[in-house]
């Protein structure tokens, strides 16, 4: 029998190792698996490379993971946002690396990682500093830059509802990077607000097929990151 449900976030992240590459879903706080991230802080794995669109807000979630010096390098498109101070400080001190990737290229590189496509050509970033050192090639009279797939050892993803096969659906714009990150990691760990019996999710509406998911842990009442930030909360509490 297939049962991907794990009964604690601690158990779900237990085998994340030092030096791992970890994809973390979310666009700002929407879709960010904050309870899994906090568990990763408790767990303590270091020298991580994190692939995520942003770098977190305030002193919770991804920002707290970075503040805790567990992240060696960020691969992201937009490392500064309204309440983002942790990353900029460490970056300006030279204590964290940054690979800046255009958002669509980031998405496509992750999708390619999941789809067995090692490299592709894109028009994005041609003739800009972000194409420096990359192969540029002409197709039909237009220039394109070659970009490589990104794969990860682990993905931490937040969804709305899951079943024991790992089928997932998401909530509104919290979907964002979740579905493609599920495909691109060796081990995909998901926090779900709801867990239902197989067949409850209409097979026409499954967004992430279970084949892309390894572990599901229920987090019934995920924290609201913006409220924690507004309250100046810091993790570990």
């Amino acid at each position: 029998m297939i049962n991907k449900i794990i009964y604690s976030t601690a158990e779900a992240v237990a085998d994340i190792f030092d030096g791992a590459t970890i994809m973390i879903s979310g666009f700002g706080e929407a879709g960010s698996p904050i309870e899994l991230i906090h568990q990763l802080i408790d767990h303590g794995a270091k020298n991580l490379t994190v692939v995520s669109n942003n770098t977190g807000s305030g002193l919770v979630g991804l920002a707290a993971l970075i503040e805790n010096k567990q992240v060696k390098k960020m691969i992201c498109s937009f490392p500064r946002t309204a309440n983002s101070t942790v990353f900029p400080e460490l970056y300006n001190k030279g204590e964290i690396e940054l690979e800046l990737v255009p958002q669509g290229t980031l998405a496509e590189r992750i999708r390619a990682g999941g789809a067995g496509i090692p490299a592709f050509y894109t028009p994005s970033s041609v003739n800009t500093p972000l194409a420096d050192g990359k192969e540029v090639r002409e197709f039909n009279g237009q220039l394109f830059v070659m970009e490589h797939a990104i794969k990860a050892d682990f993905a931490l993803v937040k969804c709305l509802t899951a079943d024991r096969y790992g089928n997932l659906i998401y909530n509104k714009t919290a979907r964002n990077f979740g579905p493609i990150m599920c495909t691109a990691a060796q081990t995909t760990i998901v926090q779900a607000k709801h867990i239902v019996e197989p067949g409850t999710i209409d097979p026409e509406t499954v967004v992430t097929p279970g084949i892309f998911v390894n572990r599901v842990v229920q987090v019934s009442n995920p924290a609201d990151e913006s409220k924690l930030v507004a309250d100046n909360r810091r993790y570990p509490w």
Partner: protein
Amino acid sequence: MVTEKNTIGWSRNEMAQKVAADIPDGSYVNLGIGIPELVADHVPPGIEVIYHTENGLLGMGPVPEKDLADPELINAGKKCVTAIPGACYFHHADSFTMIRGGHLDICVLGALQVSKEGDLANWSTGAPDAIPAVGGAMDLVAGVKNIWVITEHNTKDGKFKLVNQCAFPLTGKQVVTRIYTNLAIINVKEKNLYVREMAPGVTFEELQRLTEAKLINESGK
């Protein structure tokens, strides 16, 4: 050398209104963060525009009443929004299929600098202590058919923004097709800037004085 706000030229809302008036009925439009967001407030009645936000929503509606705000329903600026009937959600790779694949009609962006050839710089001043952040801008300018810039004509300290060559790192080369400033509406065609319309009280001579790049007057004034 600086044009004072509220004394001469269009206000931000008037600039946004000018942009909105140029959007054809039925267009698919992506609005950048900041001034471009104002455009949605000025679409004339009877015109149906579908807004795309790159974080996974087609059919973005206006800002919700405060107690109806959902932190999982946001726009690219991470502000809470709503979804219209007929909207749909999708993941990031599908969202940038829309952008990179040429499916959007218009993208309205802010700018640090625009060159006479339509080069755009809007993501980094290149300052050594600035945290570089690009977001979806490079994908938008590479993929969307019409890239419109909405910007103050000059910087706060009176520097040129419409230049011969961008000094800041580029977002894209020869991508901007139209520029809406507080002083004028300017088309970029065949590597030249054509003034289509000037704000009330602005003369072409004054406009050229505030613009590094050479302008060609097509306004009829």
